[in-house]
Structures are given as structure tokens and as C-alpha cells.
């Protein structure tokens, strides 16, 4: 029997971890001479107080849903894909090539094409690390880190070389054609007399992200392959004994993971920038780790955690705008969340387990 009831496992552990991270962040804010309560109010107001704020929060959340799902699905097969950053960068390259060189008649087809391009390029970038892990036993963490750096150099090379339009000084591709423009929330939800989400970058790819959550859930818990993947994650030896091929599972989980990370590019490259710029991912690949840990690798959890991080991101930008608190505070919060939900999991969990065991023992003693 588990030491803790299921609901406590999925809600209490992440919430207490989050609370610990929040307390430490508040101490940091206090230490640099700002009021943590005022800072929180400013963040809530800036990120959730208007449709404009929501537009940014959901835009960031869309990125984090994709990268969070990518890390989560790898976690289920006990793979740690730290290469989301590089895979998302390559996904951006895929989107840029698809949007620039194929004349699309309508944005919906362009979105479909760009999604395929992004997923293919992202998966391709996960292919070599996955293959090396499966066949040669090279540690996936190290190879994916190395591939992040190689991706950065590759994009750097392409954006100051082949992809840069003639005569431009900026390391970026040209603007994508008008037909590939994805409808933003402003286009979709504004009526004639009230403009909602004005100027915010949230766009239709948010719904693609939500669909991806559902599909990942379907895949992990409702398909045979998903079952094999989880079985492999729980016990490699047992899975092997049951006739599950480790090579297949490692390859499948990492390729899907890479594809999901790459898909992020339909939001930030096609949806927002509408061209490929240098360092377009901006660390979203790494935030995926925090999101997956916080969301307990469940698509619903990832969705909620991604919204939370979207809020932190937008709120952090507001803080940097109105106070002396720099934007990097968000990186600190992100680090604390990773630390408490990932590395110090036992520290949070074991007192809770003891508490629940003690609670359970009491009624039995009375009976």
C-alpha cells in the first residue's frame, strides 16, 4: 500500500514544494529591498489583470506546454531529455524553412505544414542522442547537453549565412509571407467595439498545445506503446522480460519528446516573431524541466504548471518594468521549483508520508 493517498501525492507534494520555493523567493525579494507582497500583487495584476496580460501569460504557457510535455514523456520512459532547448531551436529552423520556401494558400495549411516541419526537425535533433543511448549506452543527458550547444552554433552559422536575406545586417531570416500569419487571440476574440488581447502574442497554437496535452495523455495511458513505455520506465529488466525492446522504447520516447519540443516553434517562431531570430527559444526548453517536474509528468499537471510558469514569466517582466527587481528573479524561482520538486523530492515527501501513516494508524488503533 502506498504511504500517501493518491490525491495527496498529486496535489500536496507539488504545492508544498511550490510554497517552499515561494518563501525562498520572497526572502530574496525582501533581501534586495523590495516588498514581496507588493511584488506578488504587481505580478498578479500584470499577468492576469487584463486580457493583455493573459495574452502574454498564455503565449508563454504555450511554449512551456510543448517543452514540458517533451520532458514529461521522456520521464515516463526514465529518460532525462535536457536537450529541449536545442530541439526547439531546430524546430524553429523547420518552421522557418516551411514558411519561407513553400507558398501556402491559407494559414491553416501553413500551420499544419509548419507543425510537421517543426516536429520533424525537433525529432531529428533527438535522433542521434537517442540512438547513442539505445545502441552504445552513451548517457542521454550528456549527449543532449552537447547537442544544445551544437544546435546553437548551427543556428548561429545559418542565421549569419545562408538564411539571412541579402543586404540585411541582423542575424535573422526574412519575414514570413503574410499567408502564414497565425490568427492571434486579438484576431479571434475581439469584437467590433471591444478589442481584447490587444497586441498580445497569444495565438491559435495555444489550442494546438492543448490538443497535444490530450494526445499525449491518450498515448501514454490508452495505447499499447504507451503502456510499454511506462513499463520500461518502471523497470527496465521487467520490461525486457516481458518482451519489450529497450531500443524501440528509447527511440520512440526520445523522438516524440524531440518532436514536441520542436513543435514549440509554431508558437514562438510562426505565431509571434514571424521570422527566425537568434536565440529564439530563450530558455523555454529548460523551463520544460521545471514544468514537467511540477506537473508530475501528467499532461494535465503539465498544463497547469505551464500556465503557472507563464504567469511567472509575464509577471516577472512586469516586475522588471516597474521595480528594481531584475527579470532574472524568475530564473531563481524556476531553479527553486526544480530543486524542490525534483532533487529535494524526498525531503518534502518523507515528512508527509510519516504524517499520513500516523493519521492512518490512529483510527485503526481505536477500532
Amino acid at each position, binding site marked *: 500500500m502506498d504511504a500517501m493517498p493518491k490525491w495527496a501525492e498529486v496535489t500536496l507534494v507539488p504545492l508544498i514544494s511550490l510554497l517552499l520555493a515561494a518563501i525562498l523567493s520572497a526572502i530574496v525579494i525582501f533581501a534586495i529591498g523590495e516588498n514581496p507582497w507588493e511584488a506578488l500583487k504587481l505580478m498578479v495584476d500584470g499577468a492576469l489583470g487584463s486580457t493583455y496580460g493573459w495574452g502574454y501569460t498564455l503565449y508563454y504557457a504555450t511554449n512551456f506546454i510543448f517543452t514540458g510535455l517533451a520532458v514529461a514523456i521522456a520521464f515516463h520512459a526514465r529518460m532525462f531529455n535536457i536537450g529541449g532547448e536545442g530541439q526547439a531551436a531546430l524546430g524553429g529552423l523547420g518552421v522557418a524553412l516551411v514558411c519561407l520556401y513553400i507558398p501556402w494558400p491559407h494559414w491553416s495549411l501553413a500551420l499544419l505544414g509548419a507543425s510537421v516541419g517543426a516536429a520533424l526537425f525537433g525529432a531529428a535533433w533527438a535522433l542521434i542522442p537517442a540512438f547513442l543511448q539505445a545502441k552504445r549506452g*552513451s548517457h542521454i543527458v550528456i549527449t543532449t547537453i*552537447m547537442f544544445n*550547444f*551544437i544546435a546553437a552554433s548551427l543556428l548561429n*552559422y545559418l542565421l549569419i549565412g545562408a538564411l539571412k536575406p541579402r543586404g540585411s545586417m541582423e542575424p535573422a531570416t526574412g519575414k514570413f509571407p503574410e499567408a502564414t500569419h497565425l490568427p492571434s487571440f486579438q484576431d479571434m476574440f475581439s469584437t467590433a467595439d471591444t478589442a481584447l488581447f490587444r497586441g498580445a502574442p497569444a495565438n491559435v497554437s495555444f489550442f494546438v498545445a492543448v490538443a497535444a496535452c490530450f494526445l499525449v495523455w491518450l498515448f501514454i495511458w490508452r495505447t499499447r506503446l504507451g503502456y510499454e513505455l511506462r513499463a520500461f520506465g518502471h523497470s527496465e529488466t521487467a520490461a525486457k522480460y516481458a518482451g519489450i525492446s529497450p531500443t524501440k522504447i528509447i527511440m520512440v520516447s526520445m523522438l516524440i519528446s524531440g518532436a514536441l519540443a520542436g513543435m514549440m516553434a509554431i508558437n514562438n517562431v510562426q505565431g509571434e516573431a514571424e521570422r527566425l531570430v537568434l536565440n529564439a527559444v530563450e530558455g523555454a526548453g529548460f523551463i520544460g524541466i521545471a514544468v514537467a517536474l511540477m506537473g508530475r509528468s501528467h499532461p494535465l499537471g503539465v498544463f497547469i504548471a505551464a500556465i503557472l510558469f507563464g504567469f511567472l514569466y509575464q509577471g516577472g517582466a512586469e516586475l522588471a518594468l516597474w521595480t528594481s527587481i531584475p527579470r532574472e528573479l524568475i*530564473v531563481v524561482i524556476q531553479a527553486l521549483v*526544480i530543486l524542490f520538486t*525534483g532533487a529535494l*523530492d*524526498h525531503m518534502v515527501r518523507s515528512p508527509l508520508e510519516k504524517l499520513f501513516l500516523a493519521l492512518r494508524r490512529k483510527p485503526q488503533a481505536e477500532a
Partner: protein
Amino acid sequence: MDLVTIIQILDSTLRAATPLLLACLAGLFSERAGIFDIGLEGKMLAAAFMGAAMAYVSGNAWIGLLCGIGASLLLSGVHGLASITFRGNQLISGVAINFLAAGLTVVMAQSWFGQGGRTPQLVEGARFEPVTLPFAEALSGVPVLGPIYADLISGHTILVYIAFACVPLTWWVLYRTRFGLRLRAVGENPAAVDTAGISVVGLRFAAVGICGVLCGIAGVYLATALQAGFVKDMSAGRGFIALAALIFAKWRPWYAMIACLLFGFLQAIPLRPDLLEKFVGMRINGQLLEALPYILTVVILAGFVGKAIPPRAGGEPYVKER
């Protein structure tokens, strides 16, 4: 190519290799004891900031060095707490430490100095100055060997010499002392060490501590010797290159030095594109050189150039049977 340019390039190779070497040896101690550490980068960054900040405030580079090592040790303590005491995932802990350092250094730098996440420029005294070795002046007239001694070997900061002295020292500690034997054993088979009545936890904390000290020196070197002050993200992936060098060297100290010199050389040549072009006869792409250490590591990891086998108990928390 004449002797002067060769010496110039090798000189910048030494400078670039020093932080890599220190971080690489730091990782070597930790990983040989069975604690994976991908937080080398973060520890260097924290040490660079604290070293520069305290050197600026006190005007003394040595105080900066001590405080930098202190900051790095603090993060080592977090890593030890997470991965040894609470038996958490060492990789995730390392990722968290990297972000913690990347965020906190900028937040603190902004709060203390208000210069957009940097420390002020360090002036003389707050930096480590080049040391001229004895007889360097007198011997510089000797053909070939004179300039090599005077310009290449002499004239670095004390931290460079410390770094290279750490190589034989590490070898000696690991292979010629009782502590080193136990340290290597705890990375291969902690249960055996435990059976022999030696504390696994104690040994691993010692290794993580040594790792913290070496990362601290590496970070302080960046901010007070290589450059004059801390800037945001100044470690610039060096912690990961050091990790790559460690795998390249297959967790052995002398090979680590060779790997770091190689990767240092790769960092040094893009500074002289003209020479490179003349030497190879064609233009070599800067981004390719930038990516080369990482590509080489992947090739090594793929096992095409001999297999890199990490310490056997690496990454696994030790659970005593109850």
C-alpha cells in the same frame, strides 16, 4: 609561422585552458566518488560573481578568492544535501544549481551595484596580476627556450600555476593515498566501502567539497584574472566544456589536462582567424570551431575512439540495506 606567433597562441591556450582544467578536476573528484555533477557551470558562475564582488569591496584579490570558493562550496553543499542526504536525482539537482547561480548572481549584482547585473571594473590589487618567474628576464635572450620560458611559461597569474599544479596533486591524491583509494572505491562499489566500515556519506561529501573548492578557484579566475569583473553568464558554457573534457579524458587526471589544453586551444585559435586561414589554406568557420569540443565529445561518447566508461556507481544514490 614564426616562434612569436606560436608562443602567442599557446599563451592564450593556457589562459583558456585554466578554468576548464580546474572545473574538469573538480568534476573528476565528484564523479570518481559517484556523484554526477552537471552543476559545475553554476558553481563557477557563483564563484565568479562572489569573487569579483568581494575583491571589489575589499580591494584584495585573495579575499575575493576566499569568498568565491565560499559561494561555490555553498552550492556544493546544496548538491550534496540533495543528492547524498536526501538521495535525490543528481542530474536534476545539477540543473537546479545552474539556474540558481544564473539567476541569483544577476539579481544580487543588480541589487548591490546597480550596474545592470555586473560588478564594477576591478582595479589593480583587486585582480590577480601576472607573476614573473625568476630569471625570466635574464633567460629571455637564450634562443628558442628563452622566449618559451619568459613569454609562455612565465607571466601568468598565480591561479594558472595553481591549476596546473593541481594535476599531479590530483593524480597523487587519487592513486597514492588511502583517501584516494576509498574515493575511487565509493564511486565503483559503495556497498563494499560501507562494509569495510568507512562512511560513504562522509567520503562523498568530501569529494563534493573538493569539487566546490576547485570550481570556486575556476570561477574566481574568470572574474579576477582573465577578465576584470563579473558580467552576466560569464562562465559561457565552460562548465559543460569541462564536463566534455572529463569524458574525453575518461575520468583520469593527466588526460584531463591534455583534453583541457586541446579544448583551450580550440577556444584560442578563433581569436586569430588570420593565422588559421593562412595555416589551413582556407577559411574555417568560427561556429564550427565553437561546436568542435561538443562534437568531439559526442564522437567519444559514441565509442568510436575507445569507450568512455563512467564510474560504475555514478548517479546512483547509496541506500544502505535495512
